């Protein structure tokens, strides 16, 4: 079965607000967790990753939080823009496996 899954299939936010997309995972053996963004008609695009021994990692306007106690991670997008509208996927990777395993996505809609 799936090792990662999103909490909500859809999320709608107002432009300028912060967005939080949540993901749960089941496999404690995951070494990395990765967030991808997929726009309509395109392939997924890497956003940010976090190693399993970290709690937080920040990028440009994005922050990923990892809570290993409850096997939960989140992607926070600051000051959400219309261009952030897309489907967001969390994925996990084990170093010795190489591949990334994706969950089903959350569709983020940004209202102007």
């Amino acid at each position: 079965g799936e090792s990662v899954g999103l909490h909500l299939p859809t999320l709608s936010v107002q432009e300028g607000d912060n967005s939080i997309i949540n993901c749960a995972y089941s496999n404690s053996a995951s070494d990395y967790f990765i967030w991808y963004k997929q726009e309509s008609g395109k392939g997924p695009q890497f956003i940010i990753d976090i190693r399993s021994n970290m709690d937080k990692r920040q990028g440009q306007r994005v922050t990923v939080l990892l809570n290993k106690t409850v096997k939960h991670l989140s992607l926070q997008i600051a000051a959400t823009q219309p261009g952030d509208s897309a489907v967001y996927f969390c994925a996990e990777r084990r170093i010795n496996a190489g591949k990334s395993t994706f969950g089903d996505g959350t569709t983020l809609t940004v209202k102007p």
Partner: protein
Amino acid sequence: EAGVAQSPRYKIIEKRQSVAFWCNPISGHATLYWYQQILGQGPKLLIQFQNNGVVDDSQLPKDRFSAERLKGVDSTLKIQPAKLEDSAVYLCASSSISGTALSGANVLTFGAGSRLTVL
């Protein structure tokens, strides 16, 4: 840097027919992946190549799907015969590093995908 190229972008066939998809990864990327993405779902790995060798094909339906990467560059994914449930987007991705502890190994660069409709 040129991205991952895939063709065709769209293909419509009838069940039991055959189809082939082509992928040209980013130059120098040793690892190539084929994922299947059914509408409304996340991508599911079909096969992973490291250069011209298969690393993982455990989820590839080998009775109808085949893939090759003969010279360690381009790759072809074939379906024969196609079934209705094969309707999906077939995504090719590549990465420069595989199976290491480096964060960069997580960066898969995807092509735009080939959308298959089986009637």
